[in-house]
């Protein structure tokens, strides 16, 4: 019933189940970007003619929209980036660099692993990893032990695992980390498409946001920075639009958020992102969650009936994605055949090789849904999966 809001579904007969990779975009998001390029394309924060003012106004209104959406105290705490990966790299290479120890979880995807390696941190030497049990639960005992041994650390964990849809109890993680005087960044790449997040309630220090996984355009994201860190965080790139005064001997920077947004931003993307958030607000998270939950339950029930299916975590503490395998069948084979049957999903390691190695698998089949998916989509998937299994056995 929501697919009509998304032009992709009128133009494609694909059953789209790869929402953890990127979501489809409602028509307001697409048309707002076209409108920017067709009607008032101008740079922001620089020129002062009419179209430039309009572009600046809409861009800044988008910041306000995101601030209110995630209940940040002020709009200065919202820094637009090109996505979660850039958000994490930004904080990793500026603010978090000074920390002796960085703590991550076993379920991280590469965006929250590789930046730490690039700083020369290796396991046990500047980088600690909180283990998980066979159900992929975050091990709070292990976490507390690591924090006890390494207070004043920088903790960077995912909210919802990219590869398995597993939800971390980030409120408890943040609380425990703060007890040991540590600072916390949450990778919220998979969050906003499925549930509301409240920065003040979570008391989180940094929160990375993706637009394209939240029904917005690609190449846009944001990092929320708690007020008290705004002055401590150094820009990791500088240039146009970030400075107050420049002469050849020195430069002075503008205040946040401008000092963090060097160069011309993805203006159309940011404006489109705000439209995506407006769209979510209009539909409402209660409706989104109810709709998604129904399909998710149905998907679980139908998948569970398939022979020799292997899940890796309890499905009730997951959201959005289901990740699985079939005994003695390579996920790649399933992916190729489902593609031919017009089912779009992802097979492989989902940019999370370490957890795959821990589970001793090379990858999984991942079905990831959004609220616009229907039980009919699930039925088509199951029919295709049965056919593929039949062909491969």
């Amino acid at each position, binding site marked *: 019933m929501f697919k009509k809001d998304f032009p992709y579904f009128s133009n494609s007969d694909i059953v789209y189940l790869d929402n953890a990779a990127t979501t489809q975009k409602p028509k307001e998001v697409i048309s707002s970007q076209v409108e920017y390029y067709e009607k008032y394309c101008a740079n922001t924060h620089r020129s002062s003619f009419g179209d430039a003012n309009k572009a600046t106004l809409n861009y800044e209104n988008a910041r306000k929209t995101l601030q209110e959406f995630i209940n940040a105290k002020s709009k200065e705490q919202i820094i637009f980036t090109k996505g979660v990966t850039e958000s994490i790299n930004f904080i990793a290479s500026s603010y978090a660099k000074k920390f002796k120890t960085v703590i991550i979880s076993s379920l991280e995807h590469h965006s929250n692993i590789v930046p730490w390696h690039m700083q020369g941190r290796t396991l046990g030497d500047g980088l600690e990893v909180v283990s998980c049990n066979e159900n992929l639960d975050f091990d709070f005992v292990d976490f507390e032990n690591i924090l006890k041994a390494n207070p004043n650390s920088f903790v960077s964990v995912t909210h919802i695992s990219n590869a398995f849809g597993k939800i971390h109890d980030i409120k408890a993680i943040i609380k425990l980390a703060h007890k040991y005087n540590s600072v916390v960044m949450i990778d919220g790449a998979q969050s906003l498409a499925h549930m509301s997040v409240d920065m003040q309630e979570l008391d989180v220090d940094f929160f990375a946001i993706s637009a394209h996984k939240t029904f917005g355009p690609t190449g846009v994201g944001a990092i929320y920075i708690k007020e008290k860190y705004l002055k401590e965080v150094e820009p990791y790139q500088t240039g146009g639009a970030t400075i107050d005064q420049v002469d050849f001997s020195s430069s002075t920077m503008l205040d946040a958020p401008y000092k963090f947004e060097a160069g011309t931003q993805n203006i159309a993307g940011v404006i489109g992102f705000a439209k995506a958030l407006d769209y979510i607000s209009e539909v409402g998270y209660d409706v989104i969650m109810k709709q998604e939950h129904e399909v998710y339950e149905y998907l679980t029930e139908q998948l569970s009936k398939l022979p020799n299916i292997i899940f890796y975590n309890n499905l009730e503490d997951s959201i959005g994605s289901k990740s699985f395998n079939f005994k003695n*069948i*390579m996920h*790649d*084979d399933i992916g*190729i*055949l489902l*593609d*031919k*049957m017009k089912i779009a999903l992802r*097979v*492989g*390691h989902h940019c999370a090789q370490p957890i795959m190695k821990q589970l001793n698998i*090379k*990858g999984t089949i991942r079905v990831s849904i959004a609220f616009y998916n229907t039980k009919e989509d699930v039925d088509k998937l199951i029919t295709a999966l049965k*056919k593929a299994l039949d*062909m*491969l056995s």
Partner: protein
Amino acid sequence: MNTIEKRVQDIKEDLDFFDDELQKYEYIIDLGKKLPELEEKHKVPENIVHGCTSQVWLIVEKKDDKLYFKGTSDAVIVKGLVYIILNIFSDSSIEELREVDMDIVYELGLSEVITPNRQSGVIGMIKKIKEYALSIN
């Protein structure tokens, strides 16, 4: 037309016979089932073809002036592709293998399966086959 090109043409004709994509894959799966087993002792890291999501192992044997290849994969469809590739390139002269154009894979019309994105191993295999030919004196 040299031997390799002729074999590519033959396989392309076989594959083109199927209008239905799934039938084509059923055929490839059947080819995979015909692939002789590779002895376990050859399934070692140095024989792995890099750049593949599915594991592909490839070994080479030289007899006279010709190279003979054996290989396998842990994925069934890829196994079928391995069969096709071995059929095309095995029993070819070193000189001919050195001249192989990588675009040859697209001629087979399986570009969706064998794009680098999919990393099904076919491109990696051909690269490795060519490397073998270039490294042999």
